């Protein structure tokens, strides 16, 4: 599964994207798995309220299923316009 990070999430984790092997069933499970890996993930995911997630390039909730998903992205609230 490809995991993408944008804006300050990318800066805290240190890479724009990475490919990981995971059996996480939901986005929340994936976040828990990442947080347990290293301090930089813990730092990036410490406040889920300030994070948004996209699953296969569509905005999703943290309880979204990861079955069959190819790409998950984490980022702060968007500031377009």
């Amino acid at each position, binding site marked *: 599964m490809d995991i993408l990070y944008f804006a300050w999430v990318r800066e805290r984790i240190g890479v724009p994207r990475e490919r990981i092997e995971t059996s996480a069933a939901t986005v929340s499970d994936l976040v828990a798995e990442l947080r347990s890996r290293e301090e930089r993930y813990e730092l990036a995911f410490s406040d889920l309220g300030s994070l948004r997630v*996209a699953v296969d*390039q569509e*905005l999703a909730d943290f309880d979204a299923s990861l079955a069959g998903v190819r790409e998950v*992205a984490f*980022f*702060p609230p*968007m*500031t*377009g*316009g």
Partner: protein
Amino acid sequence: MYVSVQDQPFDLGTVSAKFAEGHSNNGAIVTFTGLVRGGADDRLEAMEIEHYPGMTEAALNAMAENAINRFSLGDALIIHRYGRLVPGEMIMMVATAARHRKNAFEAAEFLMDYLKSRAPFWKREISDSGASWVASKDEDEDALSRW
């Protein structure tokens, strides 16, 4: 319908004139253009805009389609830039064409409200005191509730 996510500048006059052609059934065209605003103390040197290639184009196409259906538009256009921009540069524009002005104005506001908080762009301000990510505003999120 026209959607473009680009790092290059666009020519407002050329884009607007082209958009206004061939609308024998539409009586109203509204365009909105967003510029990089210098800070109150004029210390903003640049704005860097990051986006999510692939998702951005899909999100903007969906927004334009929604606006066309919801407001019975004859046409809609969204251009949004990314990369490094300096104060005064055009960041983005929307254009809407409708039979009457009310729908054209409302559709332009609808698109702007969605672009603010549902299009995957992130702005970073560069000033002589450093760089900082622009925080989202609650009022931008609240603005969606009226649609």
